[in-house]
């Protein structure tokens, strides 16, 4: 097992946006209309730099083999690369032990794994799981399914009209019966940054565990599991420069050891007889079947890329862009922005509506200008319900976005307004 100490150091690079953009050739692409792409759908998935794509190709062209303890050179190399990626991810989120990193397909599988392997084992009817009203469906539906199957009680920390959580309610909603608080660090629909410390403090006070949905925080800001003092962290590679198909569950070693396996199959066993099987140790216990070795290795490269920039710098850049976007869009006739008004308390996500124009139409018209935004419920229907809108339009930023791209969005919106006859 590769140790964190054994990893090569990552060289720090200055934050040079022109250089960064050159690493993403897709940004030079034109869409059907002939307009150049302005990619503002990063909360759905990020783009991938050439370094990550090169790593995928390099892995398959030079080292590809199955890692199941093969004795031949390729298998040994592939195993080393896979375990090195695990160590890189551990270092990236401040985990002390690479074995605490479980590779999953995505955030969704990571959360389902906890619902299956921890909650099904340790929770009984009447035990409470607390989530919030601003969760992504992936952090709601697994708990609803568990509720329906096992009779646990599912409670929500309410959202205030500005998209923040009702922190006063936290004290009364998290109770002595609460066994788990499963909470997002950042809302994908509104960009709200959740003050985890308040929630963790209350959870600790009642002896509940804390699972953080880091799908939107790990890609965009420094995250340190020791400093957060939480128990589980789930996130997806595809939102942080890595390929689709690879995600992470981090958990405290003692917890992971206490849990049941999730799926059964090759590689998660110690012994199998026709009568009975015994389980392998963590993390293998949770990685049944042939893992996604290639994409895990590529996630290691993605993490290196982000580390070279520095997550503080990533956050600084996004805060600047978001601040600019909040001000720029406020000037567009008919636009109203949902959520907290300042970039200090939100990630690089700006959800908005344009008076008299359905989000779907906004997205469609912007697309002809090359501007790619997301429209819909963003897998957060409870948020839509609370805002009393069927859907919103959402622009979301990442390391390569520029203020010029925000301008393109704003002037595109002005044209949408004209096209659909929004009064000035």
């Amino acid at each position, binding site marked *: 097992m590769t140790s964190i100490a054994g990893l090569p150091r990552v060289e720090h690079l200055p934050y040079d946006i022109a250089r960064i953009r050159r690493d993403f050739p897709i940004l030079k692409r034109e869409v*059907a*209309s*002939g*307009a150049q792409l302005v990619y503002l759908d990063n909360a759905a998935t990020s783009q991938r730099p050439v370094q990550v794509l090169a790593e995928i190709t390099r892995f398959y062209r030079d080292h590809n083999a199955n890692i199941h303890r093969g004795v031949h050179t390729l298998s040994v190399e592939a195993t080393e690369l896979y375990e090195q990626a695990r160590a890189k991810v551990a270092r990236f989120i401040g985990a002390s032990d690479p074995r605490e990193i479980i590779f999953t397909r995505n955030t969704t599988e990571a959360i389902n794994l906890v619902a299956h392997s921890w909650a099904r084992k340790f929770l009984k009817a009447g035990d409470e799981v607390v989530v919030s009203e601003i969760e992504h469906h992936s952090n709601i539906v697994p708990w609803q399914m568990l509720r329906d199957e096992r009779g646990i009680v599912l409670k929500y920390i309410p959202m205030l009209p500005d998209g923040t959580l009702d922190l006063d309610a936290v004290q009364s909603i998290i109770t002595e019966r609460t066994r788990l608080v499963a909470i997002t660090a950042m809302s994908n629909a509104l960009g709200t940054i959740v003050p985890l410390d308040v929630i963790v403090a209350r959870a600790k006070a009642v002896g509940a565990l804390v699972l953080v949905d880091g799908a939107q925080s790990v890609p965009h800001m420094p995250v340190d599991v020791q400093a957060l003092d939480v128990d589980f962290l789930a996130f997806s590679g595809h939102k942080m420069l890595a390929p689709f198909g690879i995600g992470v569950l981090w958990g405290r070693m003692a917890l992971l050891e206490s849990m049941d396996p999730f799926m059964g199959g090759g590689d998660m066993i110690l012994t199998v007889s026709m009568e009975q099987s015994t389980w392998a140790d963590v993390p293998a216990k949770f990685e049944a079947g042939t893992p996604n070795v290639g994409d895990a290795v590529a996630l290691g490269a993605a993490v290196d890329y982000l580390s070279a920039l520095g997550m503080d710098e990533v956050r600084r850049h996004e805060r600047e862009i978001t601040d600019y976007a909040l001000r720029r869009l406020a000037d567009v006739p008919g636009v109203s922005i949902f959520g907290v008004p300042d970039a200090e308390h939100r990630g690089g996500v700006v959800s908005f509506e344009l008076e008299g*124009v*359905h*989000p*779907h*139409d906004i997205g*469609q*018209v912007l697309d*002809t*200008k090359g501007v790619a935004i997301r*429209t*819909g*419920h963003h897998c957060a*229907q409870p948020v*839509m319900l609370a805002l009393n*809108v*069927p*859907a919103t339009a959402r622009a979301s930023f990442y390391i390569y976005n520029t203020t010029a791209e925000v301008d393109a969005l704003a002037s595109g919106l002005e044209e949408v307004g004209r*096209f*659909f*006859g929004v009064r000035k």
Partner: protein
Amino acid sequence: MAESGLLEDLYREIILDHYRQPRNRNATIEPTCSADGANPLCGDQVRVDVALVDGVIEAISFSGQGCSISQASASMMTEYVKGRTVAEALQGVDAFQQMMLTGEAPDLEGFDDIASLVGVAKFAARVKCASLGWKTLAQALAEGGGTVTTDDGSR
């Protein structure tokens, strides 16, 4: 501009007209059958109420919310089927679905406005919006009414 051409392909003037001034929207009728339709992934919702007399659609109303395409298409649908028999209406539904599939407007009497929606066929993500009103009408006319959705599990 290239992009404007594309846009106007989708959003023909007649469509915007129906969107801004929908026909038979929230009309007061005494329905003999109704159905609800939803495209939950866009947030589109529509309800279709039909007053059938002797197999003829005497009156029709739609309500709900959605994008311009779904609203305009529902509006045109109501205009088209009003006064027609159930069989003719269902033929219209078929013709519409066919148009979305093939990207070719059918040669059908009274379909001229509707044919302006032919451009939608090029926009896979919007076909569901355009079809919602029509599918909901078919559901209303079918035994029992009920709820339809245009999310077929594909993406």
